[in-house]
């Protein structure tokens, strides 16, 4: 974020003084590798072994009552969200030329992603909205 609009190679280089982008580059490959197994397994369990039209509340509640499903789906959620949202970020940076629009597009993207990630974690670890409300009410006040 050093130079808003780098016009020379030197300015562009100084804008990316850290190795953050390199870390994301490596992460995309490692998480991609893990996601091949996680996503193929997920689709096999929920689309191939059963008719997906049979999925209903009872089916999902039964799955989320199993510890290994919570762990499996937590890895799936974490890797898929980071890999997917970072991929969308690459696309935003490729196609939104206007810095203002690019900023807002990324802000909306990250906000939506964070909200959905939190909802996903809450769902997996079996908090209902009601239980969350009660848990918040039960917190000692003044802390």
């Amino acid at each position, binding site marked *: 974020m050093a130079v808003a609009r780098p016009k020379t190679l030197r300015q562009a280089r100084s804008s990316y003084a850290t190795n953050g982008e390199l870390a994301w580059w490596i992460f995309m*490959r490692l998480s*991609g*590798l893990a*996601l*091949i197994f996680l*996503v*193929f397994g997920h*689709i096999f369990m929920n*689309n*191939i072994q059963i*008719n*997906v*039209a049979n*999925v*209903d*509340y*009872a089916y*999902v*509640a039964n799955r*989320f009552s199993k510890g290994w499903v919570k762990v499996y789906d937590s890895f799936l*959620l974490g890797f*898929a*969200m980071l890999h*997917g*949202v970072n*991929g*969308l970020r690459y*696309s935003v940076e490729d196609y939104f030329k206007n810095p203002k629009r690019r900023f807002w597009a990324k802000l909306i993207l990250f906000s*939506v*992603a964070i909200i*959905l*990630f939190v*909802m*996903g974690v*809450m*769902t997996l670890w079996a*908090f*209902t*909205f*009601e239980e969350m409300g009660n848990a918040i009410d039960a917190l000692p006040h003044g802390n």
Partner: protein
Amino acid sequence: MYRGREGQWAFILHRVSGIALALYLLLHVLDISLVMYGPDGPFNAFLAFYHQWPFRIGLVAVMAGVVYHAFNGLRIIIMDFTEWGVKYQAVMWYGVLALTTIIGIPVLVKVIPEIVGRA
């Protein structure tokens, strides 16, 4: 008109499938999280809506996108981390398309009867 070579098509398909999969992921996390409203909540009605045939066909497209994106991702990793990857990238792309088709056929055989209501 310039129609591009294999690498360009590989990139475009990877980009389009990636954007589609990421947007589907966001929607999927949202719909599954509706189970938090409990058995009397909106979850069952929402899923019944999704089980209509246009969405089932959409789900087949999502699965196709997953398989292509996965194998083309492997192709990218091979190109990045081996000496010979870039030399064989075009051949590997045809391999990606072949693998996607080979995996896709049994999936279609399983899923199409479900969609047309014969299984």
